[in-house]
Every structure is written in structure tokens, then in C-alpha cells.
């Protein structure tokens, strides 16, 4: 019997779900509301030298990569299954497009973080 690839995608979906349940609200608040609108955050919290230092730190790179890649895989998997619930029955091309986007986004994030250097 051919082994199913479902557990891999489900694991990535689950990992992204846990990470986003833990971090997405506070991150959206910080980067999208707190710093830009100056509510509850100093406006220089995301200043270039600070964020660059974070992205140059190996631990910071891992966090940025994990957040971007796992959020993308979570979204791709859940959107794919949600389309079915909405009465759209996606085939292989849709699956390739969604999971391919998550893959491309993950690779792009890794390449950019390596380019930013140490």
C-alpha cells in the first residue's frame, strides 16, 4: 500500500496552529497596531537596528522562519479543506497551488534570512 502523505501536511498544519494560537494575536498587535499607531508600544520598538540585530541572531532567525513557514503551512492546509466545506471541490491543481505557495514562501524566508547574514 502506498503510504499517505497526509500525516506530514497535518503535522505542519498542527504545528502552525499551535504556534499561531500562542503567538499570532500578540504579534499582530505589536507589528500592526502597537508600534504603527503608538498604542501601548514605543514607536522605536521595531526600529531598523533592533529588528536587524534580531534577524541576524541565529535564535531570531529560527523564530522568524518558524513563524512565517508554519503559519503558511497551517493556512494552506486549512484553506484547502475549507474550500470543500464551501462547496468548491478543489482538485490537484488547487492543492499544488496552495501547498506550493507555502513551500515557496518557506524557501523564500529561509533564503532571505540567510542573505541577512550573522
Amino acid at each position, binding site marked *: 500500500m502506498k503510504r499517505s502523505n497526509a500525516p506530514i501536511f497535518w503535522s505542519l498544519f498542527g504545528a502552525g496552529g*499551535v504556534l499561531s494560537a500562542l503567538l499570532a494575536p500578540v504579534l*499582530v498587535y505589536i507589528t500592526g497596531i502597537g508600534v504603527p499607531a503608538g498604542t501601548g508600544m514605543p514607536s522605536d*520598538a521595531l526600529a*531598523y537596528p533592533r529588528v536587524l540585530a534580531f534577524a541576524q541572531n541565529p535564535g531570531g532567525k529560527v523564530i522568524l522562519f518558524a513563524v512565517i513557514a508554519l503559519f503558511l503551512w497551517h493556512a494552506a492546509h486549512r484553506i484547502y479543506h475549507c474550500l470543500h466545506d*464551501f462547496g468548491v471541490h478543489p482538485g490537484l491543481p488547487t492543492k499544488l497551488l496552495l501547498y506550493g505557495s507555502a513551500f515557496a514562501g518557506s524557501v523564500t524566508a529561509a533564503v532571505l534570512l540567510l*542573505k541577512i547574514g550573522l
Partner: protein
Amino acid sequence: MTRLPYVRPMQGWWRRNPYYVRYMLMETTSVIVGLYAGILLVGVWRLSQGQAAYEAWLAALRQPWAVALHGFMLLAMLYHAYTWWKVLPKTLPLIHVGGKPVPGLLLSAAGWTATLVISAAVYAAVRWWGL
């Protein structure tokens, strides 16, 4: 003579019951998770291009419509976090402690608590210790 088989129409099935509406709302939060990953990815890309490019990204986030969009996204992410931990007990095998099954609500409560503690820690880290 053959007749066409009856196929129950499924169009709009989820609008017939508030429980299903909440289910679909929970599932569509994934669109926002993906959108936010895209926004962060653009941020990392702009960061890799240097200070001017990164500051242009920050300036875009300061647009009123961008702040409003993030306000909406924050609500979606809170709903995602709430529902993710709420359904957690249904996705796990039963866990037994001392021969007794751990109640689902306790597992959900542990998840909600983890989100609160980590959110507070991240907020404090970014605000007072500079990332």
C-alpha cells in the same frame, strides 16, 4: 425507466445553523494566518534590502487602513487562538492521569493560559528589553 437520483442540495449548508457558522468562521481564520505570514515575509524581504526599504515597510504599516486591517486581523487571531484550544481535547487521544481521564476543559484552559502567558512575555520582551 430510470429516474434521476435525489441529491440533497448542500448549497449554503453552513448558514442553516449558528454552530456551523462558528465552525466556518473558525476555519476561515486560516486565511488571516496566511495573510499575516505574507506581511511578515514582505517585512523580512524589505529588511534584507536595507534600512530605507525596511522603513518604507514600516511606513506602509502606519497607513490608517493598514492599522484598521490589523485590528480586524487581531480579532480573527484571537478567535483562532480561542477555538484552537477549545477543540484541542477533540483532536487528542484521551489522556489519563492516575487512571482518570483528564477533563477536556482542563486541557483547553491550559492552552488559553499558555497563550496569555506567552503573549505577556512577548509584549514585555519587545516593550522593555528590546526584542
